[in-house]
């Protein structure tokens, strides 16, 4: 049994302008000790996916369908006490901006100990010990002094370490990291990513890494999900996604970022602008920007197609390629000819 099973998850926000389908039917499994990357641009639904798993959506948002199972236990529709137990103990989350996720009016030590006492049966003294231990684990120098300081007295990288310490204090099975290094400088990002990799090996938790940075997923992840307009375009191992992409959006992304392969050449951007979630097209959401869009792309949304053991894609081009290569045969009835 997979540690986390997400099946056909749908989350919508109900706004004055109408229903926004932020997550529109996504499915994936996560096993113990694996690192899963979710990449996509702003508005692709990657963060909402994470918030839906944790059920920490804004008041206008609601899970409208699908299931999220943690070790076989259904979380969608579960009561608040089950969710409370799950959050922090089983699944923890760290956010992009460590400044706004820490309370500026309490010391770092107070906040760390509060989280530990809330989720475990430790008393104050034991919680303090645990907090110090966690700060040492995330390589914070002089943890005794740091505990007494307020968040503003710490740099961005240090705050993110404290957030990680807090998230891992109860030894969760899954750590969700929502753009954990986007607000940080490159050399600090390298420190935090290395720390996460170390801790993952040491503690053996699974990580869901949400980011728009293809470099970060390439470095960190075993498996990758590429999202666009609330849906999964493609899911597969890191190597499969980077070296054998089977979705036009993934291919477009890889062509549009500067990297070794296209060094010195002109970038090939994806044309058009990101989709308006209030006006979703009927077919494939990427079709309006896709250079290879066919008639069917505009009318029917492709289902998940298994490409091989390592990869799943939702793109009609795979069917066309299959027909062209003779791997798929089509019975042509007289009415189609």
């Amino acid at each position, binding site marked *: 049994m997979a540690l986390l099973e997400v099946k056909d998850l749908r989350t919508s926000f109900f706004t004055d302008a109408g229903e926004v389908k932020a997550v529109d039917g996504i499915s994936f499994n996560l096993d113990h000790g694996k690192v899963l990357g979710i990449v996509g*641009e702003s508005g692709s639904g990657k963060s909402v996916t994470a918030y839906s798993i944790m059920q920490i959506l804004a008041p206008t948002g609601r899970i409208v369908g699908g299931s999220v199972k943690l070790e076989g236990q259904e979380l969608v529709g579960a009561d608040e006490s089950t969710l409370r137990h799950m959050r922090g103990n089983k699944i923890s989350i760290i956010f992009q901006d460590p400044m706004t996720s820490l309370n500026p009016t309490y010391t770092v030590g107070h906040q760390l100990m509060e989280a530990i006492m809330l989720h475990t049966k430790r008393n104050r003294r034991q919680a303090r010990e645990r907090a110090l231990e966690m700060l040492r684990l995330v390589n914070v120098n002089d943890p005794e002094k740091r505990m007494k300081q307020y968040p503003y007295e710490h740099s961005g990288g240090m705050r993110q370490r404290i957030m990680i310490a807090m998230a891992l204090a109860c030894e969760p099975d899954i750590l969700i990291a929502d753009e954990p290094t986007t607000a940080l400088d490159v050399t600090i990002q390298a420190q935090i*990513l290395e720390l996460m990799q170390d801790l993952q090996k040491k503690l053996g938790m699974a990580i869901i890494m949400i980011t728009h940075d293809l470099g970060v997923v390439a470095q960190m992840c075993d498996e990758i999900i590429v999202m666009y307009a609330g849906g999964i375009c493609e899911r597969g191992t*890191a190597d499969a996604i980077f070296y054998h992409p089977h979705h036009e959006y993934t291919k477009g992304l890889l062509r549009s*970022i500067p990297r070794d392969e296209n*060094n010195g050449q002109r*970038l090939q951007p994806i044309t058009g602008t990101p989709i308006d979630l209030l006006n979703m097209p009927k077919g494939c959401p990427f079709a309006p920007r896709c250079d290879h869009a066919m008639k069917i792309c505009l009318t029917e949304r492709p289902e998940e197609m298994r490409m091989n053991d390592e990869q799943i894609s939702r793109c009609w081009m795979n069917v066309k390629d299959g027909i062209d290569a003779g791997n798929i045969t089509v019975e042509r009835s007289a009415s189609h000819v």
Partner: protein
Amino acid sequence: MSENKTLLEVRNLKQYFDINMGFFRSKPLKAVDDVSFSIRKGETLGLVGESGCGKTTVGRSILHLYKPTGGHVIYDGQEISSKESLREFRRKATMVFQDPYSSLNPRMTVSDIVAEPLDVHKLYKTRKEREDRVLELMGYVGLNSEHASRYAHEFSGGQRQRIGIARALAVNPEFIVCDEPVSALDVSIQAQVINMFDDLQDKLGLTYLFIAHDLLVVRHISDRIAVMYLGKMVELADAEEIYKHPLHPYSQSLLSAVPMPDPKTARANKRIVLTGDIPSPLNAPSGCPFRTRCRYARRECAESMPSFEQVAAGHYVACHRVKEIN
């Protein structure tokens, strides 16, 4: 693309800000401290470094958006000092800002935003001339006439950045300071804007100072790259040269820290992970600013700031131990 003629020369540029420490005491924050470099006509000089290193301040001080504390900015052989030379200079040098949301006035239509530099510098005679020029500029950046009467909030981030670029082009500049022009944009839109910068350079013969923290983008667009750390320039070389053979220990770790969008390279990459944080520019270390995080630091590094010297053709480094460690 780049000719050898120097267009802009920056000599010993210093920009200090007085930070109020309370009760009539103040302390200088050395945002830019003794930086010298030059930009050739038609080239793109990339300026990289982490937040607080002074890269944006360099761009702004060059354009005299801040009055430099010291040093010289020499444009096309003429020093920018008097009011007249500055007014002249501002017609040739403009800026594109990072945040396409806050850098456009929400109460102005796109055509008024784009035409504002024309109004300021009185670059048209008739209404019609102004209108034609605005449409021409919008054409350069891929916007059309129906966009002209709309307001900035009606546009996406990528389109807003195009408006900002059209405004920068209004005075027919030769030199543009691009301050993180693509960092606020989505990946798929970044490439469109980067290509536009490339095309405009070819078409209009522009020279860019391209400030960014995304090293892969900078490598793509730049002919030469300069690296800054805590107000000092530590290395300057051709883009490929600095990527293949960075000589300063800071550039080495900075470049190795970039997550490469390629799983095999990323796994094989030997990262030099720096310990500690960037010191506050208010309490910059003595001598070399990088010494507190440098694994090669010796006593001499604390005693004096290494000079910015040419160690190979066109490759400048400021490090006492550059010869020993490479």
